[in-house]
């Protein structure tokens, strides 16, 4: 019996629980004596029995799935011959993997040796037993729960309160998921990063000027042993982000000013959604455009005026990224500019200032904190942007501030280090998590500062 069939069965039991729970109370409702009538509407008693049926059974299933593989693996490895058991952990894991693959049928039996085949038989028997045990236990628990819920129905029982409390717990759990996600992110990058800093000292990572994460597969191989100085990567990230902001801030800000102060309502109604299309285009499309159209264009223009432009220049990637961020800057700035009270504009216009003077001397200074907050959010976006740089920026870590050369970024390195097959605990893959930790911390700080500024600014005028 597969898991989906089991879930279907549990669902049917739950529905049955609802029906019988409801039916039991429905009879009591017609009592003439009001004090003899049940506390809640019949359907709440139905929901109550349903909850008693489904919840414990689901908990059993989830726990079972959680521990099944560990327990089974332990049992199988105990059955293996002694010399196999004595193998180092890594090899033992490989053998166990093979056994599982044979048992599930992903690997043909004929190619495997008899030890593995026997173990695989054992494993699949265990798996079979375990599934039967799981199914029987889950159904038993569901039936018991249903029985208990049904028996507990009583006219004074506050079924609605019970059900509402259960729903409240669900709501609170869902909203706490945000915290869980953050904790998950922090832990997942932190642990791997700590393991990385065990192998590579933090000072080398933070101040080293040379980045070449290729480690030789065998120790006797010729080749670099891998060096993890991340300064060129930070420099590259900053360079590309700076180029992007040089494009996005002036264009975004001027568009926002025009839209908020000059454009007619009709023009605004048309232009704003059009600009927002730019923000809705997937970044992989921008990446394709940057690599295929922008980069060759840059190179040709550079050649025409006598400059050598690398085919994966920071300029092309930064430019396209800047264009992507324009709507981000413009819509955030638009919000804060329109939030500036009209009275301030009227005062300035009444003194004889032109509209542009009013904007430059009154509106922008008043809106500045909000605009700065928006720009900071945009910077955090530029730093974390991945696909454009993966497709259009380079892989080699050059330490340069020349925008015509190829540089690499934190996100490019994370992607290149983690795509493709390699041992999970090599410094190379762990380095990706260290970079991820850094990226997360940087963007988190930028976001917190930006959100604080924007919030304070809003409160000032509300």
């Amino acid at each position: 019996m597969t898991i989906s069939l089991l879930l279907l069965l549990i669902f049917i039991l739950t529905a049955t629980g609802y029906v019988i729970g409801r039916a039991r109370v429905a009879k009591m409702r017609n009592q003439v004596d009001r004090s003899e009538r049940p506390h809640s509407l019949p359907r709440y008693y139905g929901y109550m029995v349903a909850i008693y049926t489904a919840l414990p059974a689901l908990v059993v299933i989830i726990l079972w799935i959680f521990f099944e593989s560990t327990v089974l693996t332990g049992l199988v490895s105990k059955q293996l011959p002694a010399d196999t058991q004595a193998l180092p952990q890594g090899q033992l894991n490989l053998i166990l993997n093979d056994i599982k693959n044979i048992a599930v049928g992903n690997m043909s039996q004929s190619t495997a040796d008899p030890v593995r085949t026997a173990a695989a038989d054992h494993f699949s028997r265990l798996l079979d037993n375990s599934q039967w045990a799981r199914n029987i236990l889950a159904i038993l628990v569901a039936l018991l729960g249903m029985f208990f819920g049904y028996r507990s129905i009583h006219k004074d029982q506050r079924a609605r309160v019970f059900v509402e409390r259960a729903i409240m717990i669900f709501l609170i759990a869902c909203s706490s998921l945000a915290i869980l996600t953050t904790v998950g992110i922090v832990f997942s990058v932190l642990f791997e990063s700590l393991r990385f800093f065990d192998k590579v000292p933090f000072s080398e990572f933070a101040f080293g000027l040379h980045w070449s994460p290729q480690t030789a597969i065998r120790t006797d191989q010729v080749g670099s042993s891998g060096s993890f100085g991340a300064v060129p990567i930070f420099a590259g990230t900053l360079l590309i982000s700076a180029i992007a902001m040089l494009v996005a801030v002036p264009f975004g800000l001027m568009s926002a000013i025009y839209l908020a102060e000059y454009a007619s309502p009709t023009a605004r109604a048309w232009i704003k959604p059009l600009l927002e299309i730019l923000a809705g285009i997937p970044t992989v499309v921008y990446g394709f455009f940057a690599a295929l159209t922008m980069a060759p264009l840059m190179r040709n223009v550079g050649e025409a005026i006598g400059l050598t432009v690398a085919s994966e220049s920071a300029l092309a990637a930064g430019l396209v990224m800047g264009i992507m961020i324009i709507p981000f800057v413009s819509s955030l700035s638009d919000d804060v500019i329109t939030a500036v009270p009209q009275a301030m504009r009227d005062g300035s216009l009444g003194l004889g200032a032109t509209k542009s003077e009013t904007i430059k001397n009154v509106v922008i200074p008043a809106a500045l904190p909000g605009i700065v907050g928006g720009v900071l959010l945009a910077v955090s976006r530029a730093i974390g942007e991945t696909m454009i740089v993966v497709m259009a920026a380079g892989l080699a870590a050059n330490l340069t501030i020349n925008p015509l050369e190829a540089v690499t970024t934190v996100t490019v390195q994370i992607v290149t280090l983690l795509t493709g097959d390699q041992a999970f605990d090599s410094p190379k893959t762990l380095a990706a998590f260290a970079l991820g930790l850094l990226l997360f911390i940087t963007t988190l700080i930028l976001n917190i500062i930006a959100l604080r500024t924007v919030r304070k600014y809003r409160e000032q005028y509300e």
Partner: protein
Amino acid sequence: MSNSEPTGSATERSTAMRNTSEIVKASVKKRYARETRFRLFGLIAILASLSFLAMLIITISIKGYPAFTQTFMQLEVILDADTLGLDENPDVSQLLKANYSGAIKKSLLQTFPDVKKRKDKKALYKLISKGGQYDLQKKVIAAPELIGQTMTVWLPVGDDVNSYMKGIVDVNLPEKKRRFKDNQIGWIESLKSDNRISQRFNRTFFERGDSREPEMAGIKGALFGTMLTLVVTLVLSFPIAVAAAVYLEEFAPRNRWTDLIEVNINNLAAVPSIVFGLLGLAVFINFFHLPRSAPLVGGLVLSLMTLPTIIISSRAALKSVPPSIRDAALGLGASKLQVVIHHVLPLAMPGILTGTIIGMAQALGETAPLLMIGMVAFIVDVPTAVTDPATVLPVQIFQWADLPEKGFVEKTSAAIMVLLAFLILMNAVAVYLRRKFERKW
């Protein structure tokens, strides 16, 4: 005009005033010029952004539209059992394994009997796509009685012929510099004059999975992968996000815990998507041992990523329901939860759905976190379950963009066009929902 300034007579003062007004008058022109210039800058900024948008869409459309057609060539294929390597009464398993490419090659040689040299033969064989044999296989299996006869079939041509027919090959280049040679052009032109070449709608593009041959590559696998991933995302993120929004907006007391949750949600909305990919890799794959490259894991990661978006817009929708609705229901004796479930939620639903669609559109275009969890593998089969290895449309685009064959440039652009079409559709539905159900209280 105070008298406290005894210095300066009335005339002096009037000259000073004239001076000021003269200064103002003299500068007015300049100031107006500055005003116009400022306004122009604003207009230029907007026009530049919009023209970039136009440029992006136009270049991609120009590159992508040829991918929607495929050139076919008419061939007289002789299906004799010898060439195919078949017995007298072949069963299906034999038919599956028969040598169709041999039959195609033979008929190509018959069409151009003067090709004798080995090198020329090789060039000739390249006219037909490697996928041609599968088309022929399908036709033969459908009608095995044709074996031994001559069959007239239309077969897809190879990548180079395809590019040539679409005018992408620059014929003026010296022969050595292009992959498509002069003798091949000659063959194609002679076939064309016999009306044996035709361009048709490229159904392969929508009916096949990924392939290493550009003319055989399709987006069906990626589309199904995207669909499965988005279903997982929607099933997980919609109920959780609505529950979270309802709690935070309707029930949560103002205390440190709820403040923390709010700050967290706002921050998560701005965390780079690749970090979610790292989370998925470390937690779902390395800790929970879920299968790599599976839509299940992709959906889990994407739903964590879209949750903040949906929560924030759902809260806005809940906030816009006026308190009088709640008061009326409470006054009639409903419990707080009944008020929310029976009255507030249905009224806020259009806004919540709009936010959900926008969140889904965001998930649809996301690539980076999916690279982290291994959805970047080369997968030919069309996935059918959430645990099958799969890829999604944006990742497919990323993979094709890296390939050197010229045919993949148009495939990539065409896949982008399909992706953008879906995004436009989703956003249009969101706008429609908002327009149709928006209520002014």
